């Protein structure tokens, strides 16, 4: 393959692929790439994709083979592709589909058409402990309860298994219709996950930016599956929001949906539960006891006849849910996230237990199409007062971040920013409750933190949604899953060190498209000359990679 100056892809030997967005064939190449590579970052000019074992196996699940991948690369590449890349692709893709999980006369069977390979795999200690008796040269019996763990282990030894054992349909959901209209990308996401109801689909993750309508995709999936569904959410506020959306966008009524939280214990055809409630641990029970004894709610929910489980913010999935999910592989599963980046690097577990990533859309692409609000991001560098500066300089390194983050100079800046947006709804988000309390008191606006009672939370969010409330000061409890469609300004006064995910999620609070098509404004206040500037740079990396360019301004009192 010789060089093609007009090619829009640059394939690196380390399996990264660069896409030149300005080149004529970029759109076609992007579409091709999305099938077998993961978008790592999408700054303005050159997007970076990475071909990983997981992305190739995801592609293999979707029916793409190594020849398809290599010919797509060859036809779009600008420079010759190293042989090692092709070899790696061929080697990795050839591993998927060599092992299957199937049902044979009701039994779960690990099957393979190559007896030697099956023997080799079965000789691995971890795999062997999960296999039952050998049924023939080509199959081992597997316990139903080990289905998920076996998939995890096989993935870790480099042999991803094609799970074609099918799903239990679950109890039917009567009279359920979808009443809203899906956007084109939501249709694509749903189709990619559902795969016409075959065993090739029905489990996996949909990644969409905050505000792009992940909930709607999940509701459409629920209706499509037509089965009783469990939705696992991050907070009670998120549950209420889900319930509101469910009643609004489907034919289900409030009697059909249940909330299982600290306040209510309802199990209904569609039930919403928080991760916290689901994994509540009985402290009187021996920590080494069976998971369902230690976490009794898992047993309660495990006994229901669900046909679908939806995991909201799947990147936050806690360890007990992983273990529980490993046991319920016979149920269809849908994971939702904006940023499929786990700080604990358990993306492989999500692949095995929830399923492969089925759909992903670049943020700036959806912004360009008007599905999420255009946003300007501004980092404002606020000088610390002399006293604060002295305290900061003399403090131990561990204390410095807090001192810089809670600099009192930020209060005045926040006040002036609020004044600049008199007709807009504003969220002031921060990490430190004392700082937030000071700001709330100074601006005479309500404060919402983890200690705020649920009823008050609901009231405050309700007032904000109705427009009654213009400014709300919130702690990190509002980082996720809170739908505040008319909030168009977010002022971040402090954050958790260099967390990229937090930055993205906080921006996500203001990305719902505005009725007037207006712009969203995201301000982040950073103490100038402190370690906050370095943390801010790290925090902004994910968004910069998604095409959000921050303006950085030095604050002047004027």
């Amino acid at each position: 393959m010789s060089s093609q100056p007009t090619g829009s892809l640059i394939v690196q030997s380390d399996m990264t692929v660069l896409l030149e967005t300005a080149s004529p064939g970029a759109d076609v190449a992007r579409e091709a790439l999305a099938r077998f590579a993961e978008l790592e970052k999408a700054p303005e000019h050159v997007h970076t994709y990475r071909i990983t074992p997981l992305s190739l196996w995801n592609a293999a699940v979707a029916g793409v083979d190594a020849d398809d991948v290599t010919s797509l690369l060859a036809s779009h590449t600008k420079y010759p592709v190293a042989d090692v890349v092709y070899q790696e692709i061929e080697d990795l893709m050839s591993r998927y589909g060599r092992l299957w999980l199937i049902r044979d006369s009701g039994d779960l069977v690990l099957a393979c058409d190559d007896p030697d390979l099956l023997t080799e795999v079965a000789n691995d200690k971890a795999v062997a402990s999960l296999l039952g008796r050998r049924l023939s040269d080509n199959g081992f019996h597997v316990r139903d309860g080990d289905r998920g763990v076996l998939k995890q282990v096989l993935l870790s030894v480099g042999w991803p298994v094609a799970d074609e054992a099918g799903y239990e349909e679950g109890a039917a959901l009567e009279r359920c219709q979808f009443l809203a209209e899906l956007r084109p990308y939501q249709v694509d996401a749903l189709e990619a996950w559902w795969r016409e109801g075959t065993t090739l689909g029905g489990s996996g993750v949909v990644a969409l930016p905050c505000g792009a309508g992940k909930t709607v995709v999940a509701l459409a999936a629920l209706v499509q599956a037509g089965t009783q569904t469990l939705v696992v959410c991050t907070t009670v506020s998120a549950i209420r929001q889900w319930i509101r959306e469910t009643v609004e966008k489907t034919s289900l009524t409030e009697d059909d949906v249940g909330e299982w939280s600290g306040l209510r214990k309802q199990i209904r055809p569609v039930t919403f539960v928080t991760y916290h409630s689901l994994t509540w641990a009985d402290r009187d029970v021996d920590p080494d006891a069976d998971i369902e004894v230690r976490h009794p709610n898992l047993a309660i929910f495990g006994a229901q006849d669900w046909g679908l489980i939806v995991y909201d913010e799947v990147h936050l999935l806690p360890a007990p849910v992983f273990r529980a999910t490993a046991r319920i592989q016979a149920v269809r599963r849908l994971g939702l996230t904006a940023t499929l980046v786990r700080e604990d690097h358990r993306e492989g577990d999500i692949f095995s237990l929830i399923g492969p990533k089925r759909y992903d859309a670049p943020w700036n692409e959806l912004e360009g199409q008007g599905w999420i609000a255009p946003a300007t991001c501004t980092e404002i560098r606020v000088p610390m007062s002399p006293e604060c500066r002295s305290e900061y300089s003399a403090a131990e390194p561990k204390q410095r971040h807090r001192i810089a983050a809670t600099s009192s100079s930020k209060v005045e800046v926040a006040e002036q920013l609020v004044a600049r947006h008199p007709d807009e709804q504003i969220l002031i988000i921060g990490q430190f409750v004392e700082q937030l309390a000071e700001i709330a008191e100074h601006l005479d606006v309500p404060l919402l933190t983890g200690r705020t009672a649920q009823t008050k939370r609901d009231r405050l969010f309700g007032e904000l949604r109705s427009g009654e409330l213009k400014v709300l000061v919130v702690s990190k409890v509002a980082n996720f899953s809170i739908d505040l469609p008319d909030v168009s300004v977010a002022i971040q006064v402090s954050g958790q060190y260099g967390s990229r995910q937090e930055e993205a999620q906080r921006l996500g609070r203001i990305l719902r498209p505005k009725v007037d098509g207006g712009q969203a404004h995201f301000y982040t206040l950073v103490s100038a000359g402190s370690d906050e500037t370095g943390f801010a740079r790290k925090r902004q990396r994910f968004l910069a990679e998604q095409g959000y360019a921050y303006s950085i301004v030095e604050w002047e009192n004027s």
Partner: protein
Amino acid sequence: MADENITREYAHAVPLNAISAFGLGPFGARGERRERDLSYEATSQQGLAVAYNTSGLVVRQLVELIWAHGGRMDAEQLRAQTAPADPALLSVEIERAVVARLFEDRGDGSVELGETFSEYLAPFELGLTDTKSLTSDAMGAICRNLGVENPIPTRKAERVAAIIAAFDAPGATEGLEAKVGPVAWKLFHDIVDSAGTGIAHASSVGIHGNIHAVGPSPFSNRISHEGATKALHDLACHGLIGVESWEGQVWIWAEAYRVLGRPIYRDWSMAPRPTPVRIDSGTAAVPEVVTAMTAALEHWDEIAPKVLKNDEPRLAKAAVAALARTTGVSTTTAELLSGVAINHGLLLRNVTGASGRGRNRRVDAVWRPDPQLVEVWKSLSTAQRWALIVSGWSSPVDRSHRSQLQVNRHLVAWELADLEPGLGFDDTATFGQWLGDHYCDLGHCDAVAEVIEELRVLGLVPAQGAFGFTDVARALLADPASAEDAFGGSVDEVIVQPDMTIVVPPDLDAELASRLREISVVDSEGAVTVLRLDETRITKRCQAGTSAEDIVGFLADVSSVELSDGVIHLVRDAADKANRVSILEATSLVVTADPGDLQVAMSLKSAKLTKVADTVAISPLTPARLRQALDRRDLHPKIVTIGEQPAARTASDEAEVLARRAEELRRYVARSPNRHTSAIADRLDQNAAELADVGGRLTVSGPLVLTPDIVEGV
């Protein structure tokens, strides 16, 4: 054999001698180029030792067999002993040994050790004839045990002849097997399989616990033996094996091979040479190691690493790790950088103190950059710097110290250079296995992997995938001057993205690429290079005198898209870190007990004082001049010297020392003429002149490794 040129055939057989003949290391410093004359390299004791040590598994076994057969094997013996070998492989290896002058093929199917080889390198003698470890009495006992008829000869030589005759007698093999029994006979074969014609350690044949029980005299019949001990005893008493109990060694007597009834060596296999594959040459990019050297020199200027106590010309592992951390390069790169810097004299030994006397005397020293050579380094072009680093890699650090690594480097380089351009190998393990078998001296595959890793760091082979010399690397290795345009890219634009990455096209101008690398780290390499702006590196640049605006301006000029605020602020923040604390350069520091005294001193303009605290001021005047000035105001200061660090030594200092020693010798020679001392003085002068020529020392010319072209005189 005079004036015989090194041929490609010989280079294939014994590349290390060809490498030495061209003055390319690893047995001598570059520049000591000899004539392209085979006579010395191929027939000297050292040359033959090299030929034998690197001759590979098969040739070694052949040489040992011939020696065990008295230095000559006829066609029949050769055929019998090499029966298990692949005839094609055997033929190639015999040819190789003949070319290497190890033995001669007589044309009638017989082979004979080369005369010079026999003279210089007689292998360890394991024959009854020459052993001193067996007494005449012991020989007599062996004769009796073998059934030699009375009267037993009285002279030792006659007894050996009788033993040989017994071994040669028809049915001797079967008879001996029956006599010593199956256990002993199996042990006999095990020893041969383990050591061939050499010495086996007892543990390798499972008799570690028995060999000491045999006692200092293996022929003692006073102790009854059992099992393996009895077997050992019986074999020794029948003249089949020799035993060295104290060392735990056991061997087969050369005379006893004839009763073995099979070839001495059963395994004649060698790992096959891997098939060359096409490499991904790509476009030449400036290797990181080239740009990292400047940062490394700055690092060493700040933190001088200690010279090892054993005085080895290398840095301690901790110092290498510190360099890797500071400059953001891999440990391999850091190790290479330090080796090359020491090799070229960019780092010089500076004595910092000494203690103790006599044998307890200890000298403390550190490595510090030679300011003169550092200046020359900075003036070199990117290609010249690359050539210099590669030449440092391929030259021995110390001419008296032959390192295995150096041997490995040259052998691997030769094998890669000998391939057709564009070809390489794709698997380090199989390549290493083959090299290990082909040149026994090379050792383990890990050693080859280490060299391949170095070649990748040096940018001589592709960063990933199959390894073979790229076209630019071939040009550089054959003639460093021809690589001047290696990085002569025509493009002068990159994309500096808001996420701090820089997309660098393959044909970017070398100087631009080099400057970019000084402020960034590699994110990904391949068809293009993706760099990431690095705060630490930018701070380092700023510490070295570059301003934030210079860097921003440079990035703005070179970027085809507008710089984002994030990029600009990253540079400014990094620069701020560099300038947050200032070090004022002052020759003198004035401290007074009373602030009033300082006021008085400050009023004296000629003292040029700058107040930095109530009782502290600094001045650019030397302490002596400042005292003169302050004396005039009746202040009469005392001068206190604070542990000042002496200036780093330079090559010129070294040259001066050598020149002084040469002069002293000449004065001595003038008093009592001595040709030898005079020659030493001349050499010292020559060395001094070479050291003083700082520009010349960092100029690289001539081939850097052995290539087919230079062998063939192209």
